[in-house]
C-alpha cells in the first residue's frame, strides 16, 4: 500500500488526561470508596445504636457491664476482704456512680450515643447476659465472631456457585431463544417470589420428615465425626437442603434475568459489528456480550448478596444452622440484649465489607473507573 500523504487531521477534541497507570487510578478510586464506606458504616452503626437505645437498651448493657466489673473488682481486692457486707456494698455503689460519670452515662443521650458508637465501631460489644461462646468466653465479640464462619460458608459458597453457574447457563440459553428450554425457564422464573427459607420448609418436610434421607438441620452430625474427611462429608450432607432451598429460589429467576439481559445487550450495535467482523460466536459472547455486562452483573450480585445476608436470621432459623443469624434469634428469644445488638453490628460490617469488595471488582472491570471519567452513571 502506498504511504498516505497525510495532512494533519482536524484538531481533536478529546478529554485528554494525563495517564497515570491504571493501577494508580484504581488505588485512588478504592481509597475514595474506603473513606466513603467508613463514613457510611459509622452512620449505619449510629442508626443501629439509636434504634437500639430508644428504649434505653444499650444503656442497660453498659450499666450492667459496669456493675459486673466493679463487683468483680471489689470482690477480688484482698484489701477489702475484712470489710462488712454493707461497707462493701457502699463502696461498690460509689464506684459505680463514679464509673458511670466517668464514662458519661449520666450525660444527655446524644453524647452517650457517641460513646456507644465508638464502642460499636471498635467492636467493643460488651458481655452477653445469657449466651456463652463455645470456648467459654462471655464477650459478645467472641460469641459473634465464632459464629461468623458458618454463615459465610453457607451463604458465601452457595451464592458464588449459583452466581457463576447461572451466568454461564444464561449465556448458553440466550443462544436458543424461543426453544422449549427457554420457555421453561421463563415459566419457572416467578419461583423467586418464595424466599429460600420457604422452600426450605418444603424440602425439610419431604426429605427429612417424610423420606428420612437428609437431616432436619444443623451443620454437622451430632456427635461430630473425628476425622476431617468424615467431618467435611457430614457438613456437605447438611449443606444439601439449604443449598437446594437457595437454588430453588434463585436459579430460574437468575437464569431468566441474565438471559434477558444478554438478549437485550446482544442487540447492541457493537455486538452486530463484532459479528460483521467475522468473529467466532464464542469470541462475540465472551468479549462483546459478557464483558460489557460484567459491571452490571457485579452490581446485581452485590444486591443479591445483601438481600440474602439481610434475611439470614430466618434462613438459618429454619435450618437450625449455627451461624450469625440463628444466634440473633436465640438471643432475641432469651432477651440477651448485648448479643442482639452485637449481631446487628457485625452484620452491618459484613454487608459493608461485601459492598466494598464488590466495588473493587467493579473497578477492575469497568474501564471508565481505570481511566477516571467524571460521572459514573450509577
Amino acid at each position: 500500500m502506498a504511504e498516505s500523504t497525510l495532512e494533519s487531521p482536524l484538531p481533536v477534541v478529546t478529554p485528554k488526561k494525563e495517564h497515570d497507570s491504571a493501577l494508580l487510578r484504581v488505588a485512588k478510586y478504592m481509597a475514595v470508596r474506603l473513606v466513603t464506606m467508613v463514613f457510611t458504616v459509622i452512620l449505619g452503626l449510629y442508626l443501629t445504636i439509636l434504634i437500639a437505645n430508644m428504649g434505653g437498651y444499650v444503656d442497660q448493657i453498659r450499666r450492667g457491664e459496669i456493675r459486673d466489673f466493679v463487683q468483680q473488682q471489689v470482690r477480688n481486692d484482698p484489701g477489702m476482704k475484712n470489710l462488712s457486707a454493707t461497707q462493701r456494698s457502699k463502696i461498690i455503689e460509689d464506684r459505680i456512680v463514679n464509673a458511670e460519670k466517668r464514662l458519661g452515662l449520666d450525660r444527655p443521650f446524644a453524647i452517650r450515643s457517641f460513646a456507644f458508637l465508638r464502642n460499636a465501631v471498635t467492636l467493643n460489644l460488651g458481655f452477653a447476659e445469657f449466651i456463652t461462646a463455645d470456648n467459654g468466653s462471655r464477650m459478645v465479640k467472641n460469641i459473634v465472631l465464632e459464629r461468623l464462619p458458618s454463615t459465610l460458608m453457607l451463604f458465601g459458597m452457595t451464592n458464588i456457585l449459583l452466581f457463576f453457574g447461572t451466568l454461564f447457563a444464561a449465556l448458553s440459553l440466550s443462544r436458543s431463544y424461543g426453544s422449549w428450554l427457554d420457555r421453561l425457564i421463563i415459566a419457572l422464573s416467578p419461583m423467586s417470589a418464595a424466599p429460600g427459607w420457604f422452600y426450605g420448609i418444603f424440602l425439610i418436610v419431604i426429605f427429612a420428615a417424610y423420606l428420612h434421607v437428609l437431616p432436619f438441620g444443623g451443620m454437622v452430625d451430632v456427635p461430630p465425626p473425628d476425622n476431617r474427611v468424615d467431618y467435611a462429608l457430614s457438613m456437605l450432607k447438611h449443606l444439601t437442603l439449604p443449598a437446594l432451598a437457595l437454588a430453588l429460589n434463585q436459579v430460574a429467576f437468575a437464569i431468566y434475568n441474565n438471559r434477558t439481559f444478554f438478549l437485550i445487550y446482544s442487540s447492541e450495535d457493537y455486538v452486530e459489528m463484532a459479528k460483521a467482523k467475522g468473529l467466532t460466536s464464542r469470541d462475540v459472547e465472551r468479549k462483546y456480550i459478557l464483558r460489557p455486562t460484567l459491571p452490571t452483573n457485579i452490581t446485581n450480585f452485590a444486591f443479591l448478596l445483601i438481600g440474602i445476608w439481610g434475611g439470614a436470621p430466618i434462613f438459618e432459623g429454619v435450618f437450625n444452622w449455627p451461624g450469625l443469624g440463628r444466634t440473633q434469634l436465640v438471643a432475641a428469644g432469651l432477651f440477651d440484649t448485648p448479643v442482639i445488638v452485637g449481631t446487628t453490628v457485625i452484620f452491618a460490617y459484613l454487608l459493608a465489607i461485601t459492598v466494598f469488595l464488590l466495588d473493587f471488582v467493579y473497578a477492575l472491570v469497568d474501564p471508565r473507573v481505570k481511566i477516571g471519567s467524571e460521572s459514573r452513571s450509577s
Partner: protein
Amino acid sequence: MPKDKVLRIEDLILHFKTRQGTVQAVDGVFFDLRYEEAVVVLGESGCGKSSLAKAILRLLPRNVERYQGKIYLENTEIMSMDDEEFRKNVRWVGISLVPQAAMNALNPVLKVGEQVAEPAMVHLGVSKPEAVSMVKKMFQHVGVPEDFINRYPFELSGGMRQRVAIAMSLVTSPNLIILDEPTSALDVLTQASIFNVLKRLKKELGIGFILITHDIATSSELADTVAVMYAGQIVEVSDAYRFFEKPLHPYSQKLMASVPRLHSSTEPEFITGRPPSLIALPKGCRFKERCPFRFEKCDEDPPVFQQEGRQVRCWLYA
C-alpha cells in the same frame, strides 16, 4: 461475469416478521460494483437502506422471514455458502462495514486498538505485535493519532470514532467496504474531512465502496454509480455523471429537484406524500401515489428496463 466487477447483486430479498405484519425491507435489490468504484445507494429514511447492508453481510435479525437472492463476490456466489464459510471468507476479508453511528458500534470495555486489530488476528492469523503495526498504519491512513490505540471509545470524539471505524474496516484489506450513513451523525466540517479520507482511500488503496445514504449533496463527490432505492426496491441504476445531470426515474428527478443549489434561482421542490409502509405495500409501482407522471400501466409492477447502459424500474421507459 465480467472480470472487472467486484460485486454483483441479483434480486436480493430480506423480509422479517413483526407483530404488525411482514416488513419487506429489501425486496428485489440489484446493482453491480466495479473495482475502485463507489456505488451510492440513495434513499429516504424507511426505504430499507440499512437492512440492505445487513442483507449483504448476512446480519439477520431473529425474526427473519425470507432471505434469498444471489450475490457474486469476485465470481463466487456467497448466498449459498454455509455460515461458517461465510464468516471465515466473506465477513471482513471480502466485505467490511462502516456502521452508521460509530458511538455504539465500538465495544465500550475494549481498547480501540484491540478492536481494530481483532479482524486482522482472526482472519489473517497475524500475531498481536504485527496486528498492532497494521493498526498503526490504518490509523495513519484515516488520520487518527497513534497513541489512541490504547484509548477506550468513550475517550474519543464522534469524528474520531468514525475514523477509527473506517480504519477498522480497512485492516484486512477487503475488496469492498459498505458504509452505512457514515457521516449523518457528524457536523459538517467533520463530514467533509471524512469524505476526503474516503476519496483518498479509493484512489490509493483501490477499494470499492457501497455508500448508503440519504445525503445526495455530499455523496455526489464520491459516487461513480448511483443506485436509487425506494420502498425496498432499486428503481434506478446509473453512472453518476448522467444521473446528476439528468435522472430518469420520476423519484430520482424529484430527489434532485429537492436539493438546494448554491447558484440557482429556482426554489427546491418537495415531494408530496410519504413513502409507503414496508408492511402494507401497494400493488403495482410503489411510487405511483406520489408520481406526477402516473398513468394506468402503473398499476402493474414495473420490470427493470435498460436505457443506454442505465437501468430504470418505470413504465415510462418501456
